[in-house]
């Protein structure tokens, strides 16, 4: 029952016949026009939340090495800012960037003009209002108390109404599709768009269901918050990578069969990996064993996706020097493979015993959210925005600065947390080391995280500014993409 489909026209490289090409180009322009309102709305809100989240993240990071920072204000205490940061990052930035990119990709790949886009803007308003309420509640001390699912039921409910409309529209676009056998990106998108309400809805609903006592609440919350990363965020990120890389380098993906194998192994095993979060905890031990097994079986996906994307890029690596979209997206694709491998290693009991309760586990989340997903979304936004606003990005140097800020800053945060986590775990598992010494000697890692976050924040500020300029139509005239360096013909075999 594989959906392996030869999709010859999928990310259609421009052929040579001029007449049908022109018709296709006109059709693409019509589709972009129909999606521009809602997609720009989701992108805009996502960027605002990204900047707000970066600020919250910086506050929390500084407080870890300088606990006097903003101390004494209840709404700025670490235990409130930290969850606000996490929720902002996942639901404000990542999910909305994902919805925007997902809707645009779906319309393009299904070759459907979006109808009643205004409803999607209403949906986005619901999502943003619900999230704002939830984050304000968090800093005021209203929380569900469950790590990963902290928003209040009311806030989550408002967001869910908004998301239901998005899912309905996504289903309609797919229903009205004019493209033949669907492309691998469409599979990932549909799975992701359906997994989000499923995990999010059930995760929050379960907090209020009677009859779920004690640690079952933690089990469900871990399942839901982990699935949002492994299914929703990963699904959209891979859909974007599978679309953008072949599209920009102008050749079909290496193998549709590999893509299909990767997709199905992800779909089956991805939803089972979550219990590693409670490894060693007061839950049935077999649950953790199932998740470790699922992690190991996911090797199939890691290998196939990596091979497919890398082989598609073969001989075209020079494109990372030219195309911003490729540089960001390929960085994201490679990060996906690395993140998956690190995640697999950390699921193993011997490693988990060392790094559980340290920043290393959080570093894996960041590898998925920052290094893989966010980079793929930046790549997609750099590709999509010119098609929606009608002008090209103003400055290649700004894009370049954004990339280096995101790559160096984000990379530094992740490395600091990974090695910090190993160090934290090693000192904690040595009973001779006083716990206060464990914490005291961790100080350099806390400082390192802050430095990394500052670099990351600078990159994101530049991106935010560049994005604002695009919204104001301040850019280069449309037609010729803004590249880091011109592509020379002799390279372009």
């Amino acid at each position, binding site marked *: 029952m594989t959906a392996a489909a030869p999709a010859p026209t999928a990310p259609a490289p421009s052929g040579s016949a001029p007449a049908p090409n022109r018709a296709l180009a006109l059709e693409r322009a019509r589709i972009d026009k129909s999606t521009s309102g809602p997609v720009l709305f989701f992108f805009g809100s996502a960027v605002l939340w990204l900047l707000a989240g970066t600020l919250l993240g910086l506050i929390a990071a500084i407080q870890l090495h300088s606990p006097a920072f903003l101390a004494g204000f209840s709404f700025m205490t670490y235990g409130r800012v930290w969850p606000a940061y996490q929720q902002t990052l996942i639901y404000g930035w990542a999910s909305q960037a994902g919805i925007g990119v997902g809707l645009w990709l779906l319309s393009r790949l299904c070759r459907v003009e979006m109808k009643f886009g205004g409803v999607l803007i209403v949906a986005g308003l619901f999502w943003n209002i619900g999230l704002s309420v939830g984050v304000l509640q968090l800093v005021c001390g209203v*929380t569900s108390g469950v790590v990963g699912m902290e928003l209040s039921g009311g806030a989550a409910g408002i967001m869910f109404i908004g998301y239901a409309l998005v899912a309905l529209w996504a289903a309609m676009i797919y229903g009205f599709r004019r493209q033949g056998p669907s492309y691998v990106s469409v599979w990932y998108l549909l799975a992701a768009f359906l997994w989000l309400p499923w995990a999010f809805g059930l995760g929050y609903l379960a907090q209020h269901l009677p009859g779920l006592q*004690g640690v079952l609440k933690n089990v469900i919350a871990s399942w839901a918050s982990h699935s949002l990363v492994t299914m929703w965020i990963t699904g959209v990120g891979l859909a974007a990578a599978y679309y953008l890389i072949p599209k920009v380098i102008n050749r079909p993906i290496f193998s549709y069969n590999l893509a299909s194998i990767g997709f199905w192994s992800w779909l089956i095993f991805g939803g089972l990996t*979550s219990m590693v979060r409670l490894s060693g905890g007061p839950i049935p031990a077999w649950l953790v064993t199932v998740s470790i097994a699922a992690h190991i079986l996911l090797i199939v996906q890691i290998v196939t996706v990596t091979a497919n994307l890398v082989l598609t890029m073969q001989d075209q690596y020079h494109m990372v020097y030219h195309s911003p979209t490729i540089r960001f997206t390929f960085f994201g694709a490679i990060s996906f493979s690395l993140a998956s491998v690190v995640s697999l290693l950390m699921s193993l009991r011997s490693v988990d015993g060392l790094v559980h309760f340290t920043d290393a586990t959080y570093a894996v989340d960041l590898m998925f959210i920052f290094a893989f997903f966010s980079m793929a979304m930046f790549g997609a936004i750099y590709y999509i925005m010119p098609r929606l606003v009608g002008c090209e990005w103003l400055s290649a140097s700004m894009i370049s600065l954004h990339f280096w800020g995101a790559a160096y800053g984000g990379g530094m945060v992740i490395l600091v947390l990974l090695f910090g986590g190993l160090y934290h775990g090693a000192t904690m598992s040595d009973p001779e080391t006083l716990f206060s010494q464990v914490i005291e000697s961790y100080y350099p890692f806390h400082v390192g995280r802050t430095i990394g976050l500052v670099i990351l924040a600078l990159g994101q500020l530049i991106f935010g500014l560049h994005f604002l300029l695009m919204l104001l139509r301040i850019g280069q005239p449309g037609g010729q993409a803004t590249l880091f360096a011109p592509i020379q013909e002799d390279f372009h075999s």
Partner: protein
Amino acid sequence: MNRSMPLFTGVIGSFAISLAAIVLVPKSQIGALQPQITEDEGKITDIFPIENRGIAEKGRAIYAANGCYYCHSQQVRDPQNGTDLVRGWGERRTVARDYLFEEPPFLGANRFGPDLSNVGSAKWRNEPEGETRKPARRDAAWHLLHLYYPRAVITQSIMPSYRYLFEQRKVSGQRSVDALPVVAPKGADYEIVPKAEAKALVGYLLTLDRSHPLQEVKSAAAAPAAAAVPAAK
């Protein structure tokens, strides 16, 4: 077009598999746990765990609202999963039954602070046995001062000050019995007294004691007692 069926079946199937494995089977396995009841000649002599009521319940809400669980776990783990027992954070690992009445359990995800599963127990320690620099017994007064200014009692602490749970009052006549042994920022004729929230939070912390033997956990220290507990539904 005609390939939608396998795709949607697959997606729905992936929901079903993951829901069944991660949620439904565990629910059937541990969803109907009951407290352990010890009977002696027909009379109930002991029930564990019991529900938090009164000040402990209020304090629990303060613990949640301020996100204490982002740095403090409440789960004691086996020796193969860490040094919790050696560090003095508990006498046995914690199990699902310990959390029966917790809405929700604060299992925690990171340890920038020590585990608090048993912080209310007199045996709880965060220093090796025989450590001379060991702070005074962690009673209510210690916890209040620690919440107000953590570095007053543990110099290396990175815990934030929760001084918004305290108020600064002008001393009228005698000092309050609750006043902290610190100099108030406003001057000598002022005193720092805990608000109801701080008292409730400390009340909650002092109830945290999961050292009670349970039949499903082997505990080096409490093995005979646990063995004597008759099985109860």
